[in-house]
């Protein structure tokens, strides 16, 4: 029986492994970083399953392919289906109107409805509520996938993949760029804070003409604040400006965030192709699955299905843009 070698145990690699195993294939996983952790950019993600919100500034496949993600993940990890609330300060209401025009799947909410949804949000007169959206905890999701795979007898090698593998699936993100010339890194910065004084129960997006940001509750008063989007490939540092912007957004949602404890600072690079959509390429013995950009958890299920279709059934989904076996 063919053994598929998945290279890279981030969200792309683990989702591909999970999909292949679900279809009865045999797989092994290589990642020199070992268990999921801060070495991979999936660790720093927001974990929002928000295809309708993302569609505001993304192309159509993100909406269509993203919608399958919620059920795919719900079979594998805990998914919170409490929707997304999008708000803007009164002076930025044109941005809220623009956002509403560019997408679908929401209802308009006024200050009373906003207070009903999130009693700790103040000073917002209008918002958009996307009730079908969901979120997951990215770190838990990665751990859940690896445990499930191990339970299915999948071997995890904490080492670089040997060269010359026959049935390899390269899911290494930006590390694969020597084989994927049109891949680039888009810098993202995020913070994890603890603020038990504020209770928010679903992802909140705060629109702003220059720095739109979101805050995702992780439970126990812990929140993830994200994320900047900068065309830069320096993942070594967060700038003071970015940190100011992130914290100002939280402060604007509720001034009690001023008392929050900063737990973590995350900086990493999202792998992206020029149209910011994922790609599957088969070059010789290796299938490359990459370019999830800011949609790691949202599009990994569709990417995994596309890879499994190609690997097992030789079917070419829309993400396959090159096949040279």
């Amino acid at each position, binding site marked *: 029986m063919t053994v598929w070698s998945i290279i890279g145990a981030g969200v792309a690699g683990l989702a591909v492994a999970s999909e292949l195993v679900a279809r009865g294939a045999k797989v092994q996983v290589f990642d020199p970083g070992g268990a999921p952790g801060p070495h991979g950019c999936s660790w720093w993600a927001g974990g929002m399953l928000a295809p309708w919100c993302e569609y505001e*500034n*993304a*192309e159509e496949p993100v909406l269509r392919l993203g919608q399958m993600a919620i059920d795919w993940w719900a079979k594998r990890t805990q998914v919170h289906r409490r929707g997304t609330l999008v708000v803007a300060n009164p002076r930025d209401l044109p941005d809220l109107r*623009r956002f509403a*025009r*560019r997408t679908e799947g929401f209802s308009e909410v006024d200050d009373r409805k906003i207070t009903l949804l999130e009693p700790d949000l103040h000073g917002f007169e209008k918002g958009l509520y996307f009730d079908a959206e969901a979120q997951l905890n990215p770190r838990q999701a990665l751990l859940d996938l690896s445990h499930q795979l191990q339970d299915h007898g999948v071997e995890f090698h904490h080492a670089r993949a040997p060269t010359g593998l026959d049935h390899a699936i390269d899911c290494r993100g930006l590390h694969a760029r020597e084989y994927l010339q049109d891949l*680039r*890194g888009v*810098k993202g910065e995020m913070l994890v804070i603890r603020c038990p004084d504020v209770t928010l129960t679903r992802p909140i997006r705060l629109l702003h*003409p*220059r720095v739109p940001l979101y805050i995702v509750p992780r439970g126990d008063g812990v929140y993830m604040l994200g994320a900047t989007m*900068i*065309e*830069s*490939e*320096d993942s070594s540092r967060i*700038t003071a*400006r970015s940190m100011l912007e992130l914290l100002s957004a939280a402060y604007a949602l509720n001034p009690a965030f001023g008392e929050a404890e900063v737990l973590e600072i995350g900086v990493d690079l999202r792998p*992206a192709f*020029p*149209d*910011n*959509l994922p790609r599957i390429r088969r070059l010789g013995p290796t299938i490359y699955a990459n370019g999830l950009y800011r949609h790691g958890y949202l599009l990994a299920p569709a990417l995994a299905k596309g890879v499994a279709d190609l690997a097992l059934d030789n079917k070419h989904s829309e993400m396959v843009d090159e096949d040279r076996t």
Partner: protein
Amino acid sequence: MKTFYGTPLSNPLMLGTAQYPSPAILEHAFRNSGAGVATVSLRREAGAGQTFWQMVRDLSVLVLPNTAGCHTVKEAVTTAHMAREVFDTKWIKLELIGHTDSLQPDVFQLVEAARILTEDGFEVFPYTTDDLIVGERLLAAGCEVLMPWGAPIGSGRGLNNEYALRAMRAEFPEIPLVIDAGIGLPSHAAHAMELGYDAVLLNTAVARSGDPVAMAKAMKLAIEAGRLAYQADPIEARDMAEASTPVIGKAFLS
């Protein structure tokens, strides 16, 4: 046709490279706009934007780096030097922000930075207000182009003060003038060209529209229309109707 430091522009659109949904859309928008110049920001992420900058170079249009986000002369001068190295050009769009909310230019620092940079061999495109005296000072500092705002950056309000912009055109007939900032609609861009401006610089209006590729084309057509109209010497507006066909000889009294 006026030139920009000796370089003529066949398409007087200067298009920004920020805020597009993706680099692929940016590229299509540029191709559709026929823009002669791409502006690009260097302030964020010193040195680490190489991949993106290469994409901008690959657009094969003239690159006008800017000092967006700089609040002091020192920052702006440093950024200009970096831009000269990265893009191998003497051109610099000098932007000195005086106020975070309105992004209004700080014209006092602007004049000072313009003098320092022109003395250092830069060809400065200053983002300024519509103030005539500031314009004079910038020219005295060595600038050969002026770029007054139409309205605050990203506001999309069009030409806020047409009177002042007309006065500026009249005051500096030989100087290439560019409307920089405030354009939201193609009609705004056409308006600027109809006033006799030599080019229009815009970014948000295209990048943040629902279809940047289509809006880029709309801007191109509007600028072309506005320029043709200016060259064609439009009629004066008047208070009374003026019939386009003679009435004498018609049985209008019957």
